[in-house]
């Protein structure tokens, strides 16, 4: 019982600390700029581009796709920063010196970003309703909520893997930015996947977000939960696989670093 409590505390501390550390230097206005305006601008851009492409007939498709995609801002950038932050701050050796449960420590870093990411999607969808008149009257709201949560979790899973890569490469931001932008194509946020070449479609299927976006579109159009349930199962499975790979990499990194004494220099 005591170890569980300990682990919970560790989980929570990692969560809060990483989040506070990340935004401590930011002012409220920066938070608004990065969490509300930047996503809005991106949604607007792709939605206008989409409506230019489709002659204005298919606005919902783009609004929903890009709104769900917003979760990747927290899922990839946020999570990576939380993990990489220790390296930049030089606190990694201290962390690895503690007996703390690595699993808790690791996943704790993603927790706050799950909430943050889900919130971001909700705000984005509200923009969609407000500015583009996306209609939620036929929507099973709790199923949509679950979809958002599941998609956010799976994206954070990818983020955890990216975050661990950031412990190894020097060009974290380059890799993150590239992955984020590639998701704009491959997640189907902006192009109907079945119009893409086969190899691209295949690649889409092993990424998070793809099924989440598809589910959200179905649900908002009035589809039922049972229609999307299998997709959500796969979505969360994919996320867990990425998260697990990240965790393995994290352990491997710790081992290597300790063996070679490269904790600070890598």
């Amino acid at each position, binding site marked *: 019982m005591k170890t569980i409590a300990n682990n919970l505390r560790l989980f929570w501390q990692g969560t809060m600390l990483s989040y506070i550390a990340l935004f401590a230097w*930011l*002012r409220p*206005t*920066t938070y608004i*700029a*990065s969490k509300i*305006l*930047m996503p809005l*601008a*991106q949604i*607007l*851009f792709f939605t*206008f*581009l*989409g*409506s*230019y*492409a*489709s002659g204005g007939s298919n606005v919902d498709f783009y609004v929903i796709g890009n709104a769900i995609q917003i979760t990747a801002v927290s899922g990839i950038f946020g999570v990576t920063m939380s993990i990489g932050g220790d390296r930049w701050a030089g606190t990694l050796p201290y962390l690895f010196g503690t007996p703390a449960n690595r699993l808790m420590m690791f996943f704790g870093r993603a927790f706050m970003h799950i909430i943050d990411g889900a919130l971001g999607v909700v705000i984005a969808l509200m923009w969609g309703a407000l500015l583009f008149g996306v209609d939620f009257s036929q929507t099973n709201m709790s199923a949509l909520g679950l979809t958002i949560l599941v998609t956010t979790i799976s994206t954070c899973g990818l983020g955890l893997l990216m975050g661990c890569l950031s412990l190894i490469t020097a*060009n974290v*931001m*380059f890799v993150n*930015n*590239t992955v984020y*932008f*590639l998701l*704009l*194509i491959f997640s189907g946020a*902006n*192009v109907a996947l079945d*119009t*893409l070449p086969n190899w691209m479609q295949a690649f889409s299927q092993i990424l998070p977000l793809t099924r989440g976006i598809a589910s959200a579109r179905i649900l908002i159009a009035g589809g039922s939960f049972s229609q999307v349930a299998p997709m959500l199962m796969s979505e969360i499975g994919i996320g867990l696989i990425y998260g697990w790979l990240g965790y393995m990499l994290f352990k491997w990194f710790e081992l290597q670093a300790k063996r070679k004494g490269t904790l600070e220099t890598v």
Partner: protein
Amino acid sequence: MNFKNLFVYWRTVLTVAEITLRHQWNDSFILFAILVQPMIIAVLALFMLRGLGGDYAMFVVVGSGLTGLWSSLLFISGNSINAERWQGTLESLVAIPTPFEVIIFGKNLANVVQSLISMTSSYLLAALLFGYTLKMVEPLLFLGSVLLSVFAFISFGLVIAPLFIMYRGIQQWQNAMEFPVYILAGFLFPIALLPNWTTPISYILPPYWAARALHETSTGAGDVQKVILAWGLMLIFSVIDLFIASKLFKVMLYKARVDATLETE
């Protein structure tokens, strides 16, 4: 900036530009801003605009190239003064006989010219990978438009950089300023899609006139008169921007000497 300075110091401007390019040639952030992001946007737009028919590929090439120009102006030129401060070189650039804005002009020249790579790479992508036959309708006018756009972007960058330094509050919005200009300047879709009230904002953005001139000359959508109008406005904006910049730089440098902000610890 005092126009005269450009003639007096042209040699310095070129050296600054050359050294800037060499200093940052393998910077991964720049690689992303001028190569990766515009190419991904180009791929997306090529897929999305397929149904439009006509010359949409050329339109996408120019438009996605423009996104690279703007992003690099916003992030690289916008941060050029800050970057020198972090390196500890800002003091050595201020306490010298060359006016500071001449140096930043040279740096912006390097950045803007370098970000023309965006358009080139989008062109190659569309032509080679996607197999489009791209044809430039008015090559000479297009070239003129490129030159004027470069000048307009540099001048605009000279206003942004000191503003970012003097008002941290503005710089916080930097990330949120990237896509709005893509939208308002009509890089990849006409601004007619936007609500009417945004049109005046577009008109006061030099990137909007650059986009018009480049799109009209490459796809042949506009007649010569329209192109000349865009050129004229780019020139006017450049002159205004250079004038504002010269005032801003004066105030900024004085303020930095008062507040001791030329270096960071």
